[in-house]
């Protein structure tokens, strides 16, 4: 249940991705990277660090929209930052209609609604402090695997993407359309959101029917935009909503004073360690985003995160202008549920064995093996660290000889034995003078 996949032909079996994966989900076996399904959180870091572009996300093709009578695009605000010189979201939204969508609704508009709900929810419920944002699904899965004790701190609200999909479908059903005729397509900077649309964990069903990556749609959209002289007024959101794409945007939108925004999965891990050690109980809210630069740096984007962030500032300025016209449609008159349907479960994928005694025994073996390994984490064995190799060995997935140093030691010992053995000639051909003392 993950979306990041390997292009075997492009993979050269280097150590780039195994070294950076935050859940140690990747190993190189038989010269190719292998992703452990249960451990992958779809953060997309490997997509970004692979120098051969051998990692990608399983998204849906644009042609899939034709499976539905009524096709609706719900673009992430990150899309607005991908085009040089464009500071009016209406141009991009109109462009999406040119591509074949019947209508477009902004995820950023729902972000504004989720912001209000966040304030309400926190005021009415007693959530463990600091409250952790639930906006980034890669982080949610990381907490599930690596920081399960922090699950109670997560704000149990659905994401703006899910929220807009619900509002849109509910609205058009009330307009008399059949549910199965409406196809809602998320235009995504994010691999983790592909997964959480297909296999949602905390809601019974996703209202998103397909996820198309920004990378894929960019090629088709970009040439169209120049032709749009008079864009339709399709945008409904303000600068606050689109800010969610940037690190710190969610916190800023809520107006929290006492919040931390942290981006980049490695930085997030450090902060969550602190939270788990009880050191940040004085903080009200923490916004954690897996990608450097937030969703603007998502793995399925085209533009550099810092350039995108600069454009975001320009967009916000443009969108804050007083006389800006917004689309007038009563999309939110029918309320939808914005809270989770069920709690997030602990995932014990890092456990050696479900039986505690067995696990303890394996752990002792693991420590003993680790002691013998060179502890230089060179990665030649295909595991990210010597410790990870030791873990693989006790789990029966690797051999001590996979370590080049251990192999060399073994070969050397064998060579020594060979020399000793080669000197031991059979008695029948022993020359006089050999082994005199033996007889």
């Amino acid at each position, binding site marked *: 249940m993950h979306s990041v996949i390997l292009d075997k032909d492009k993979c050269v079996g280097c150590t780039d991705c195994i070294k950076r994966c935050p859940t140690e989900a990747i190993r190189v076996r038989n010269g190719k990277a292998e992703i452990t399904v249960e451990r992958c959180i779809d953060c997309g870091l490997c997509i970004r660090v692979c120098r051969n572009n051998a990692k990608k996300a399983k998204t849906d093709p644009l042609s899939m929209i034709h499976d539905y009578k009524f096709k609706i695009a719900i673009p992430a605000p990150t899309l607005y930052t991908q085009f040089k010189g464009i500071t009016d979201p209406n141009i991009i939204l109109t462009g999406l209609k040119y591509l074949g969508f019947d209508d477009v609704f902004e995820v950023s508009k729902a972000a504004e609604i989720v912001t209000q709900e966040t304030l309400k929810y926190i005021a009415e419920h007693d959530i463990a402090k600091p409250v952790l944002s639930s906006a980034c699904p890669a982080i949610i899965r990381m907490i599930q695997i690596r920081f399960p004790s922090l699950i109670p701190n997560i704000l149990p609200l659905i994401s703006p993407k899910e929220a807009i999909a619900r509002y849109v479908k509910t609205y058009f059903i009330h307009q008399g359309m059949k549910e199965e005729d409406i196809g809602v397509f998320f235009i995504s900077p994010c691999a983790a959101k592909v997964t959480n649309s297909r296999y949602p964990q905390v809601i019974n069903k996703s209202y998103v029917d397909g996820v198309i990556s920004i990378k894929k749609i960019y090629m088709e959209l970009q040439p169209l935009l120049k032709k749009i002289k008079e864009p339709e007024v399709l945008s409904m959101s303000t600068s606050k909503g689109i800010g969610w794409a940037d690190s710190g945007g969610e916190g800023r939108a809520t107006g929290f004073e006492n919040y931390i925004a942290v981006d980049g999965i490695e930085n997030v891990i450090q902060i969550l360690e602190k939270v788990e050690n009880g050191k940040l109980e004085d903080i009200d809210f923490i916004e954690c985003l897996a990608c450097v630069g937030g969703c603007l740096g998502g793995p399925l984007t085209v533009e550099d995160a810092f350039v995108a962030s600069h454009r975001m500032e320009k967009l916000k300025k443009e969108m804050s202008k007083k006389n800006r016209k917004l689309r007038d449609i009563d999309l939110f008159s029918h309320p939808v549920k914005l809270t989770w349907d069920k709690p997030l479960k602990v995932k*014990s994928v890092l456990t050696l064995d479900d039986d505690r005694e067995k696990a*303890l025994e394996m752990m002792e073996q693991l420590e003993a093996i680790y002691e013998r390994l060179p502890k230089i984490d060179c990665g030649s064995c295909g595991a990210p660290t010597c410790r990870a190799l030791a873990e693989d060995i006790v789990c029966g997935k690797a051999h001590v000889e996979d370590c080049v140093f251990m192999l060399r030691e073994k070969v050397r010992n064998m060579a020594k034995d060979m020399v000793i053995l080669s000197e031991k000639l059979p008695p029948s051909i022993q020359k006089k003078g050999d082994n005199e003392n033996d007889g």
Partner: protein
Amino acid sequence: MKLHYKVDGGAFTSAGFAAGQVKRTLRQLGISPEIIRKISIAMYEAEMNMVLHANGGNVDVELAKDYITVVLEDQGPGIEDIDRAMEVGYSTASQKVRSMGFGAGMGLPNMKRYADELTIDTKLGVGTRVELKVFI
């Protein structure tokens, strides 16, 4: 099963390493998140105290079927008035240490709160031995 760590004094930034390693091990053993949290917090505080107040020391962890004990031993200055040291907010940390976010006087109270058993032996000029026990 036993684990041993040596903790350097003065290494604020890498401090918490031993507690981090133990946390990782407990996760692999399938210990429940609540127990892991109790151990992590108590051990992290004890490790930090060793770094901040006693110039480092040794950590010995014993993982048994139904309990975990962590023994932290240092050859630091010892604690003068242990009853006061246990009070919330009591700290002898320098201004410099405080400016780095430590020295709230919360460490020992938190250790008491999260460990099921806490034993402290300390002697001025000789050192301190902290034993934390959490039942699984």
